């Protein structure tokens, strides 16, 4: 591939802007990308194989480690798939707890994204620190509810593991009420900034048709103008009861992908307010649901949720035994990278990091 004109550069795997151990083999003509080949697998531990050798319950803590920024949505996706497979009903209160924790997860993921993408553009520090200061408050809530900041292992088949500690709901309400002010501040810091606009606007636009065909999902898909949110499309859990809007982009460039996260965070705040107001009393787990020694009937199920990064699905096959026969994860981070080369071709080297940052990946999920 290389001739006198072009130069091959290996970006990563140890590069602060690759969000982990991710490598891109890039061919450059001057500063323009002519070819880009992503290299995966540095964090591969074959989660699917591990899960197939363990009981159904024991796969739950491993899902925390997929997208380690958002453990609770991972838990939910797996619990949802098993509930479909075994036909387990979910306790009413647990449905609310799931929505609250999942939307908090979405908030902290999008907030962390704002910090990371600024880091990718070279503004390393200020924005990231502000974002992490806010994210830390949500992680503190997670810790006092589930016992761990990031490896929560909270959801169970048919509900959640434990009920709220006293005062938790009030603390959450306080955080949710104060959150729009933080988002306003973040927008004041970033949105008008001429440098940020120059780095994001018009970079790597993506058409809706290509985004759908490339299997993109989540904010990246909606930034291209596709009105598709699994919370609306499937209405899983109790999302059909809440009123919220689905933001959409127009041209699908990096700025649309960036702004979409801010808008989605605002909608999450709305969902959180409704969920906190409507949470009923009751058990947090379906007492009929078996956790240890679960043996779902033979069959298969595909369960998916709208994770903060996109469609997170679990495809499970049971042969009636106490272990999954097949345990497949549909990782949004990996599949959102399908079009990375297409997005990067013709752009400058410095834009690659911004484009990668705007897709928002976590390598724990890409490599599994």
């Amino acid at each position, binding site marked *: 591939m290389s001739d006198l004109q072009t130069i091959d550069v290996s970006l990563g795997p140890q590069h602060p802007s690759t969000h982990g151990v991710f490598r891109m083999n890039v061919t450059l003509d001057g500063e323009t990308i002519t070819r880009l080949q992503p290299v995966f697998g540095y964090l591969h531990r074959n989660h699917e194989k591990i899960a197939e050798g363990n009981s159904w319950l024991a796969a739950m803590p491993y899902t925390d480690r997929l997208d380690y920024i958002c453990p609770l949505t991972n838990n939910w996706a797996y619990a949802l798939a098993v509930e479909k497979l075994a036909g387990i009903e979910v306790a009413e209160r647990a449905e609310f707890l799931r929505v609250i924790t999942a939307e908090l997860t979405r908030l902290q993921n999008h907030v962390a994204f704002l910090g990371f993408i600024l880091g990718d553009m070279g503004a390393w520090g200020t924005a990231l620190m502000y974002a992490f200061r806010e994210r830390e408050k949500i992680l503190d809530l997670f810790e006092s509810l589930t016992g761990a900041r990031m490896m929560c292992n909270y959801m169970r088949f048919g509900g959640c593991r434990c009920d709220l500690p006293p005062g938790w709901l009030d603390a959450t309400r306080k955080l949710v009420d104060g959150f729009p002010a933080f988002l306003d501040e973040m927008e004041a810091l970033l949105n*008008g900034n001429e440098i940020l606009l120059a780095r994001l606007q018009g970079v790597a636009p993506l058409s809706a048709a290509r985004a759908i065909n490339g299997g993109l999902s989540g904010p990246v898909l909606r930034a291209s103008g596709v009105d598709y949110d699994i919370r609306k499309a499937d209405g899983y859990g109790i999302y059909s009861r809440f009123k919220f809007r689905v933001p959409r982009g127009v041209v699908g460039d990096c700025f649309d992908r960036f702004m979409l996260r801010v808008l989605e965070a605002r909608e999450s705040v709305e969902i959180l307010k409704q969920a906190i107001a409507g949470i009923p009393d009751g058990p947090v787990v379906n007492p009929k649901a078996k956790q240890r020694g679960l043996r779902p009937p033979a069959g298969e199920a595909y369960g998916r949720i709208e994770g903060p990064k996109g469609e997170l699905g679990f495809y499970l096959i049971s042969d009636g035994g106490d272990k999954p026969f097949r345990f497949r994860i549909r990782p949004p981070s990996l599949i959102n990278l399908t079009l990375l080369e297409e997005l990067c071709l013709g752009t400058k080297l410095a834009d690659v990091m911004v484009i990668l940052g705007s897709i928002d990946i976590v390598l724990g999920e890409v490599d599994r």
Partner: protein
Amino acid sequence: MNFPGSGIIKGLAVTARNMAGSYIEKDRLTTEQYPEERPTLPENSRSFPFLVFDGEDPESGMRCTSCKICEKECPPQCIYIVQDRDAAGKALKRPKVFDIDIAVCMSCQICVEVCPFESIRMDQVYELSSYDRFGALVLDKPKLLKSNAYYHGIHPTEAAETDARLEADRKKKEAAAAAKAAKVAAEKVVKAAQPEAQP
């Protein structure tokens, strides 16, 4: 106000507000000076498992009965149990060896959930670094056993619930035993009162 550079000035105003605010608002300066200042952990916080014993003596007060459910259910298989046997080779309801390799443990709490004897619980210690790569992180029975009072110290609500449950179980058992004894005694009385049936 929309001249070139106005966006940057607006952003600088935010950083200035944050810098000034960090002197007066706790919300804007959240740094903890770690080794000197220590965080107060929430009650639910968990790190690694330990074994609870009742009373003063770890060996006799041990709740663990070596049922090995936790060993079987542990996702990364970091628990190793050998059941104790007496001189005649009869299995005893207590472990001879109980090791947890916390270098492998992923703090998932599944062992706690499956334990039917309320014996294994999550600790809150976090300063466990060591120069010994293999030995120091394998906790054996003496290192794992901690008193019920310690458990009350770190998870007061959960420990009180556990104690109440154990107490209720004990009372139920005692009541059942008393009822059984009463029944046996009553039967004896009835037998004694009835005259022998004539053939």
